[in-house]
């Protein structure tokens, strides 16, 4: 009898020991980034990061690097079902940890759920019939995170056929989307800024099946009335093989291309801030537009210093990108600042040094 009781007790002990450990990820005390370079931001890649401790560690390291702002992608298609229900769990995690680290969040919203687009279209396809659905989702997103959210970027690189679901890339359509989204967000979350554009730097001529030159597209956006709906312009500008000080030219893709964007904005009387939401250099030997790893460090740090000192109308310069959850085994790995295992790359340390005033 006694031994049976003993066995029972042992079994209970074993079962208790097998119980999953409680969630040990705690927010910790609220933090504030300390940075002499508040313009420094970084585009995180937390969309596919499922482990909460990794989300927390990523954002801690972003703050410790001296960045004040993150740009993060929140795909509509991942969150909203046909019934209208929204799975908030993952964006909740990202937003609460970003808030705890004292980071400003700029949210890029994109990708269309299957129920909001025709059959056999890609996730990047957003037809005019679904602009209202996109606007409604974005407005709900903005309202939910109004306290943590600095700005929303409406869509991504609409001047590329791939990013616009292989529809003809017309700036007028994009401005319609912008107008509906801005109106909806301003109703539900009036303090959240509306950013648009986020154009891909490209020299594709008019009529190209792949896309349209970003300067032409931007001009067409403003001609279609984009300024009325924008609180600032989101800009993607990459250095490719040129140092950051190389002067801008319409026929050249380089870092200072954002100055040409600013000229177009001012031509249309739109004196609003520029948010560089993607920038950087790549040092992968496989990529034809790559630079040496040491050049990548010098160019990137010099670019941030240059923006901070010379262009007060640039609100943020966010490096593409912080970290991927797993290696991509391609040149994309050579854009990151830390490895998937959280080892700080030398470029991370170099950015940390300039942000700490060293």
């Amino acid at each position, binding site marked *: 009898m006694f031994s049976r009781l003993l066995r029972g007790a042992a079994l209970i002990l074993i079962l208790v020991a097998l119980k999953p450990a409680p969630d040990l990820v705690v927010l910790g005390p609220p933090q504030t980034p300390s940075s002499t370079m508040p313009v420094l931001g970084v585009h995180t890649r937390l969309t596919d990061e499922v482990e909460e401790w990794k989300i927390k560690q990523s954002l801690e390291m972003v703050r410790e690097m001296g960045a004040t702002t993150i740009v993060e992608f929140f795909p509509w298609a991942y969150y909203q079902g046909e019934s209208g229900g929204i799975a908030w769990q993952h964006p909740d995690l990202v937003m609460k940890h970003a808030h705890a680290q004292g980071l400003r969040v700029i949210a890029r919203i994109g990708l269309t759920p299957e129920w909001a687009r025709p059959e056999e279209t890609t996730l990047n396809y957003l037809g005019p019939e679904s602009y209202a659905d996109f606007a409604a989702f974005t407005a709900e997103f903005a309202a939910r995170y109004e306290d943590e959210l600095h700005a929303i970027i409406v869509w991504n690189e609409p001047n590329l056929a791939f990013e616009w679901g292989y529809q003809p890339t017309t700036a007028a359509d994009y401005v319609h989307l912008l107008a509906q989204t801005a109106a909806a967000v301003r109703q539900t979350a009036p303090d959240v800024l509306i950013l648009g554009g986020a154009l891909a730097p490209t020299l594709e001529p008019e009529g190209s099946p792949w896309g349209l030159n970003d300067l032409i597209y931007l001009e067409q956006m403003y001609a279609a009335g984009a300024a009325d709906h924008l609180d600032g312009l989101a800009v993607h500008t990459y250095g490719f093989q040129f140092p950051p000080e190389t002067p801008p030219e319409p026929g050249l893709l380089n870092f200072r291309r954002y100055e040409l964007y600013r000229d177009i904005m001012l031509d249309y009387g739109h004196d609003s801030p520029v948010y560089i939401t993607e920038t950087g250099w790549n*040092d992968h*030997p*496989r*990529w*034809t537009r790559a630079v*040496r*790893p*040491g050049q*990548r*460090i010098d160019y990137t740090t010099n670019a941030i210093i240059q923006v901070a000192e010379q262009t007060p109308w640039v609100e943020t310069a966010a490096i593409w990108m912080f970290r991927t959850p*797993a290696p*991509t*085994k*391609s*040149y994309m790995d050579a854009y990151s600042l830390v*490895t998937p*295992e959280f*080892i*700080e*790359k*030398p*470029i991370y340390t170099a950015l940390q040094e300039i942000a700490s005033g060293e």
Partner: protein
Amino acid sequence: MASDKVISRKYEVRSPKWRTCYFILITSFFLLFSGCTSRSQTLDRIQADGVIRVGLDPTFPPFENGDGGLHGIDIDLANAIGREMGIEVEFVLFGYDGLYDALLIDQCDVLISALIIDETKTKDFAYSEPYFNAGQFLVLHTDSAAVNSLTDFEGKTVSVETGSAGHVAAISAQNRVRDLRIQTLPTPDDAMWTVLQQETAGALVDQVNARLYIQTHPGLTLAPEPITVEPYAIVVRKDDDDLLDELNRVLDRLTSSGELEQIVGQWIGTD
């Protein structure tokens, strides 16, 4: 004989329902595994046509270079494979970003293009045994017999190219190797020069750069074991099991005969 009796007795007590169950079970088993062993049409077509279409991105010397005619390690490897299989090789050129899509939509039969094995792609693709490791290796002075691996670097200095994968590997190793010091230099050649001058105990450099430099700088050697592994392999579509088996057999023959190392050595120097 005794066992026959046991079997017959077992059958006697089984009802027709059991037989139906066994039939379904055996049929399911056959259907399940028939998918794994069936021949895909790719190898049949390659053998019928006598041509294998090899996809590659010709912008990555010394593996593939399109300037001045197609040449490089992967070209020679593909030709050796074609010879072993008794077929012609047709090269089909793509941009790097389009390689996997091209294979998926049957624009080519295989990819031989210095591609690293990527576990995330194994839903659609399969990889051969690796034919080259592009990872980081220690370059050592031939006089430094006491130093063979990073664990021998306690209190010593390793030189690296600033910001390179070797630099990141050295930072990572600092967690395991006590007092490992890192000297950063602008290029891999600069890093290896410090070893030649015996200013540092070793350099951490990728295998291609290391072998190219050692070829022209006597006094340096490559440590036998890699510090990191970046395996290049041939890629086929997931269902092409028979083609993959054939390619692995050929790679095995080329490795055993020394021809694979000969091909690599011709472009980047002997190991």
